């Protein structure tokens, strides 16, 4: 019973803060609302008894948000006067693109079956042992390929930041 209330509370927080990420004027506030959204999502993982995923979610995204925070302070111009005015055509294009993306998502989600979520809550599916067995067993190749992808991204970032190498 209490998990159901927790679920509704977390879902409401996640959606509300996700909306505030978009609607708040100040990018710093957007970043902070994003943290709350991630924490609410991590709470969902904990409700599903996937504690490992929840903790990793917090580690990765809290770190990422920290970097984003620094990025916002350093890169974005927080002065309102010099902020470039966006023309109407860009605004219309953005709205249309967002609408199309929403359409695709709705079309994709409409067909999904909800399944029985309660079934997963007690067999320890999110515990590290099971997750490790799945990652290094059934999904070995995709997992390794994604690590190579991360490595190449890291090398690329290092290369791009060294400007004096030609």
């Amino acid at each position: 019973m209490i998990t159901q209330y927790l679920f509704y509370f977390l879902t409401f927080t996640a959606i509300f803060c996700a909306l505030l990420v978009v609607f708040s004027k100040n990018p710093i506030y957007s970043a902070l609302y994003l943290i709350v959204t991630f924490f609410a999502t991590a709470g969902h993982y904990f409700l599903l008894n996937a504690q490992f995923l929840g903790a990793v979610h917090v580690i990765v995204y809290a770190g990422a948000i920290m970097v984003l925070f620094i990025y916002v302070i350093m890169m974005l111009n927080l002065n309102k006067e010099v902020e470039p005015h966006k023309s109407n055509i860009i605004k219309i294009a953005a709205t249309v693109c967002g609408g199309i993306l929403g359409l695709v998502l709705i079309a994709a989600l409409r067909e999904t079956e909800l399944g029985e979520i309660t079934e997963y809550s007690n067999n320890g599916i999110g515990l590290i042992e099971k997750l490790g067995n799945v990652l290094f067993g059934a999904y070995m190749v995709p997992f390794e390929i994604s690590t190579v992808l991360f490595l190449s991204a890291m090398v690329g970032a290092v290369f791009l930041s060294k400007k004096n190498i030609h």
Partner: protein
Amino acid sequence: MLSLENIINGIHTWLNNTFDPTLALTCEFVLLGITAIAIFAVLGLVLVLMERKVAAIMQIRKGPNRVGPFGMFQTVADTLKLIMKEGLTPDGADKVLFNLAPFIVMIAAMLLLAPIPFAKGVQMWDINIGVLFISAVSSISVIGILMAGWASNNKYSLLGAMRSGAQIVSYELSAGLSVITIVILTGSLQLSEIVNAQQNGWWIFKGHIPVLISFVTFIIAVTAETNRAPFDLAEAESELTAGFHTEYSGMKFALFFLAEYINIFIACAIGATLFLGGWMPFHIGNWEGFNAIMDYIPSSIWFVGKTFFLIFLMMWFRWTFPRLRVDQLLNLEWKYLLPISMLNLLVVTVMAIMGWYF
């Protein structure tokens, strides 16, 4: 025998016999909250006094010696002074974030108390991913520091916060890697399991040189993560006035100050749990008599003793080493500590697979 575990179990059974289970659970939650706050207050007072006394000994002077015997109530007087002072909010500051930041730092520090095993059978939440929980929650406090630095609308504060961010992003890596060496040796992330694995010897003795290396990297990285000298660039007094908490006054400043000391305690408690056996007494092989004497000392005293030994170590090198420059700090992490701890992780993995530890 009177031990913390028996006292807690006694309270638990008494509450359950007197009230119905829901009310008893509520009572236990309230008691736990009060205990956590009490631990906070006492630790803050004790650690600040200890820091000042250790500093005094290092510099061959007396330290606080006016209020109470040997200056024991100096920190109580300081706390009273801070409570009486006005908590200013600067006009140009972002009011909401400015006032929220100290509490976020404080909440992060408080959450970290949950998975620590204080004594045999005394643990608030024995979560099965204890170590990961700690690294997840400890990264939250940086967000508080960044918020404080940005919301103060002050150049020094912002610089301090940015330095703190860069520092924690880098040093989290080697702290995590050195924690993982112990996780590999134990085969579990649960803190109680890690303590139980050290029944026949602490990891620092059982794990030979690789664990010793990861212990040293852990201590260095943790010192950097808690923003203490020689890595206290985030609040370098001679360069940045007071760093990210320049604009804070009164109790809001005190919260930052308190959270810093609590973080030191927690970092050292985790170091003691992972490397020095937590509450496990010191045992030597087959020396039955010696082991029996060691078992006679309560487990809580072992835990507190080890933790305070590590805290003393951290204070020792605060007053011994000069502060690093920013580039030296980042060089130390990315060019020395990180490669060393990565190699060390490989060595420990081989050691764990081959069973080369005792």
